[in-house]
């Protein structure tokens, strides 16, 4: 018998390492978003790129941060670090280096990593590591957006005062096969470094091509290139158009905000964006956004089992597009080769329809890229908060149907069975948002869950579980009045298109 704590080889002369000791480690899991799509486009080229990035970028970054590459998979890798700070620095360096490499490529050839970092007790084998700590890192990677680094609460506690970054709490998430919910943070390099980075516009590009840029400034470049939030200056309003003035889109030039923009509403912007150049320095007509202050509200209703239980949700400040995304806005993305399909009908001021959730997601990524602002789909909670605009009634205007409020089948309005009305044809709600009900079904970022049992209460999107369907809000022009209530929920297959499906975009503030 050996006393506990004694290191004792089972057989003399045999290396003890095969006893698979446990140890605490920071685990980094990464994979390439959309790898199978890239492989379909160009199998050999993609494979060669992955190998090159691994050799030129991933492996040196891991070594420089005193980590160990445990294994590689077709589209990803697993690495282990002694220090959480080094692990997250390594993740940031990899992400910002990829931004630089993608900048020269057309959107459909971008390669973006999703990275998860977790601190956990793991079993270390000579050629692999095991345990919940590894699984959680992999789950974090799975829910991270392309280009993002998601970290667990354990990592956050270790690095929050050591690594100069912003950390966005995404709430407690339940992840597959892990019993306890884990707190998830998204890493955002800090605002001060952003300001410094802005003073030199080419900094991001210089950093981008130098794969192993100094860690101290890497977060700045990454932030500049991919994470930029809304600028401090209020967006400029475009000249009033001949259209409904409320629908006048704001026009910005992403790279030269001080230069007057040649874009005029009504002029197709599609022609000026060269295809295959996602970072083209051309003006784009941005959706007009309404800033919402957030706060607590009661989400759900007792009208339908899917809307129960009614629960308090605390919404953080965010901005939501005043209208659903229009055919005109969608066409710009199509012309930039960044969006496919979708458009039916020739009315540029109609909401875009026939878009799948994945189509909508592509649009937000393209818009974020060309504007250097972080656009996304709203969460389901944000959508309902915005639709209610402070009301707890059946409809946002009260408990009874009224004329002039909503475009639906049976809502006291003239109704065209074949298409929705132009955006902004009806009254806005108390927040100044149009078409929050009827018109087009609107995708939100949440995966479908059949009711609110276990739903997050911090306004974050509810992901996880089976995400083959995503949530739809608003009801459409074809819906009956029951579906245009602000609490009504529906769903559709994530990758399927349908003539009534549209969306609007949001921004975190």
């Amino acid at each position: 018998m050996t006393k506990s704590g004694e290191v004792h080889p089972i057989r003399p002369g045999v290396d003890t390492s095969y006893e698979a000791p446990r140890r605490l480690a920071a685990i980094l899991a990464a994979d390439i978003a959309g790898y199978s799509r890239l492989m379909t486009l160009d199998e050999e080229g993609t494979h060669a790129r992955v190998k090159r990035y691994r050799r030129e970028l991933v492996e040196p970054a891991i070594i420089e941060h005193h980590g160990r590459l445990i294994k590689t998979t077709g589209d990803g890798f697993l690495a282990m670090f002694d220090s959480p700070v080094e692990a997250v620095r390594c993740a940031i360096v990899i992400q910002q280096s990829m931004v630089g490499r993608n900048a020269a490529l057309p959107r459909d050839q971008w390669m973006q990593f999703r990275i998860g970092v977790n601190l956990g007790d793991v079993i270390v084998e000579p050629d692999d590591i095991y345990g919940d700590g590894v699984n959680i890192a992999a789950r974090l990677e799975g829910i991270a957006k392309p280009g993002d680094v998601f970290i667990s609460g354990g990592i956050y506690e270790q690095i929050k005062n050591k690594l100069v970054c912003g950390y966005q709490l995404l709430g407690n998430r339940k992840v597959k096969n892990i019993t306890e919910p884990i707190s998830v943070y998204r890493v955002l390099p800090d605002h001060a470094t952003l300001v410094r980075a802005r003073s030199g516009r080419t900094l991001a590009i210089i950093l981008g091509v130098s794969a192993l840029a100094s860690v101290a400034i890497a977060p700045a470049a990454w932030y500049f290139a991919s994470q930029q939030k809304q600028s401090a200056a209020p967006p400029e309003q475009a000249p009033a158009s001949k259209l409904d003035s409320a629908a006048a889109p704001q026009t910005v030039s992403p790279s030269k905000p001080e230069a007057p923009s040649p874009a005029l509403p009504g002029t197709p912007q599609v022609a000026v964006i060269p295809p295959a150049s996602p970072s083209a320095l051309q003006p784009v007509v941005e959706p007009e956004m309404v800033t919402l202050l957030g706060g607590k509200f009661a989400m759900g209703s007792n009208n339908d089992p899917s809307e129960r239980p009614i629960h308090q949700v605390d919404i953080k400040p965010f901005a939501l597009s005043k209208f659903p995304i229009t055919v005109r806005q969608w066409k710009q993305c199509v012309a930039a080769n960044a969006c496919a399909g979708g458009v039916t009908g020739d009315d540029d001021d109609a909401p875009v329809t026939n878009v799948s959730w994945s189509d909508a997601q592509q649009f937000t990524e393209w818009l974020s890229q060309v504007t250097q602002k972080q656009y996304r789909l709203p969460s389901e909670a944000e959508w309902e908060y915005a639709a209610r605009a402070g009301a707890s009634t059946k409809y946002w205007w009260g408990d009874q149907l009224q004329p002039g409020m909503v475009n639906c089948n049976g809502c006291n309005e003239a109704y065209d069975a074949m298409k929705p009305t132009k955006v902004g044809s009806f009254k806005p709600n108390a927040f100044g948002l149009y078409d929050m009900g009827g018109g087009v079904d609107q995708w939100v970022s949440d995966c479908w869950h059949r009711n609110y049992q276990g739903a997050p209460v911090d306004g974050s999107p509810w992901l996880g579980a089976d995400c083959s369907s995503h949530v739809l809000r608003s009801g459409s022009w074809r819906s009956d009045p029951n579906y245009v209530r602000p609490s009504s929920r529906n769903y559709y297959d994530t990758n399927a298109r349908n003539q009534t499906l549209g969306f609007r975009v949001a921004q975190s503030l």
Partner: protein
Amino acid sequence: MDVGRIAFLAAVLALLPTAGHAQGKKPGKNVHLYIISPADGATVKSPVTVVFGLRGMGITHAGDEFPNSGHHHLLIDVSTALSLTEAMPHNKNYIHYAAGQTEGQIDLPPGKHTLQLVLSDSKHYSFNPPIVSKQVTITVK
């Protein structure tokens, strides 16, 4: 036929669907659409798993234009006639299985309910003549 003419014909054919989706496509021959389970008259618990059966045609993801194929829609407590000129509605009574699913799980309140399957083309329009299953009636405990 020379290559140019073939290319022209191909171009014209490729443009056809964008010029206007042909509604009321002809289905295949000897097609049989049916609900495998639950059986007609069955008493079941919610959520109810409904298994779809199809013979003579294929199931594809909505949007994929393969010949002689479509995707399922489950009609719950629907008694109105099917439109051949409008796309299938989607709401709590018309569930789309646009990813090409061959079964679905639905929440139903206690009581009697009817279930019926309708196959549609890639753009959610019914075939003409429509491909529909026999309507089954079930009781949810």
